[in-house]
């Protein structure tokens, strides 16, 4: 594939990962932290940034590991374990670096990092790049876009929930129930973006 075609595809995949194929609202990944943390905008923004960073970096690392280690050794089935190890190690590493070099950032973002290791969206994004056989550049676009899409969803959700904090929600729906309904409405809204992107 020529470079311009690839760059174009990367852009298309980036936008579609945010809008038309949002990793949370269409493929349901990353729901646990989404339901738990989306009460407040501040926390959601923090977690969102952390997710964007980790998702972009780990999709790249996992792509490289898959292409240059697993495929040559014919160990493709091992990707589940290897990806998890890479993600956990990367997060651990980032936590250490943050703690050492930027106490401020560590205070704000560091607490979210352990949460990210179990965020299935991170693993899911890497698995999707394998299934869809994305090239390296497209993986960059997809990883970054998925993270951004996830962050968009969680921040929007937090905004809505904060506004709704004063509303009377039926007892059975409080918490996860109403959050899921809001998520459903958001997903419905995002479907409006379908067809905006050709080839995405």
């Amino acid at each position, binding site marked *: 594939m020529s470079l311009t075609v690839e760059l174009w595809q990367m852009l298309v995949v980036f936008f579609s990962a945010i809008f038309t194929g949002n990793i949370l609202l269409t493929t349901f990944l990353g729901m*646990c932290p989404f339901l738990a943390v989306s009460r407040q905008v501040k926390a959601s923004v923090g977690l969102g940034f952390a997710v964007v960073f980790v998702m972009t970096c780990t999709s790249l690392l996992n792509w490289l590991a898959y292409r240059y280690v697993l495929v040559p050794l014919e160990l493709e089935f091992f990707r589940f374990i290897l990806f998890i190890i890479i993600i956990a190690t990367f997060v651990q590493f980032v936590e250490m670096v943050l703690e050492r070099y930027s106490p401020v950032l560590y205070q704000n973002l560091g607490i979210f990092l352990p949460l990210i290791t179990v965020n299935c969206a991170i693993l899911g994004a890497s698995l999707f790049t394998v299934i869809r056989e994305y090239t390296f550049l497209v993986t960059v676009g997809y990883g970054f876009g998925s993270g951004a899409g996830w962050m968009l969803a969680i921040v929007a959700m937090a905004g809505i929930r904060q506004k709704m904090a004063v509303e009377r929600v039926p007892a059975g729906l409080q918490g996860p129930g109403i959050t899921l309904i809001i998520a459903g409405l958001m997903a419905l809204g995002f479907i409006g973006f379908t067809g905006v992107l050709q080839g995405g």
Partner: protein
Amino acid sequence: MSAVAEREPASPRPRPRKRESALRKTMKEGLWDNNPIFRQVLGICSALAVTNLVLNTAVMCLALTWTTALSCLTVSLLRDWTPHRIRMMVQTLIIAFYVILVDLALKAYWPEMSRSLGPYVGLIITNCIIMGRCEAFARSNSPGMSFLDGLFSGLGYSFVLLMVAVLRELLGMGSILGVPVPYFSTAWDKWIIMVMPPGAFFTLACLIWIFRSIRSGEEEKSA
């Protein structure tokens, strides 16, 4: 669920009754009281996406129940040997092992299903329920009970997901397991929204609402 537990014959001797009620307790916990989804709202990620078809959901739930039960069994068998520090890595490895077995089997013997389920089989590994049961129960209980605990947690999860799937496929496509259902496949004006992602969110939300209302009703009565 409690109906199933009550069918067991009451035994007059003290020891069997104690063993038997531990079993009943485990079953009831996994399926209803501590139903992973309703009660703890755990682990929905990896399966909601496939709930638009009952068949796919059934395969997914089978895979998850298999993994949970066997992982708990294995973790329990190794519990005296596993050093405390690395227990989470070992648990992850064991869970991944059983999941990969399922993935390999599907790819070889049912490739269309493997493609339909996509990455979601692999994502069972990160499903909080399995790790949760291993940590909370299998680490400190006998292999037999751990296996059952894992089994019933898996079944509790499956029961909810299958309900979502039945509703989605019935209302959205007029069939169950691909078999057209009399009224729904003909006169019923199919709810396309059920086939799409928002449908999953709404259905699950309503089921949680119903379950929690029933639960709080039960709790009020016994309080």
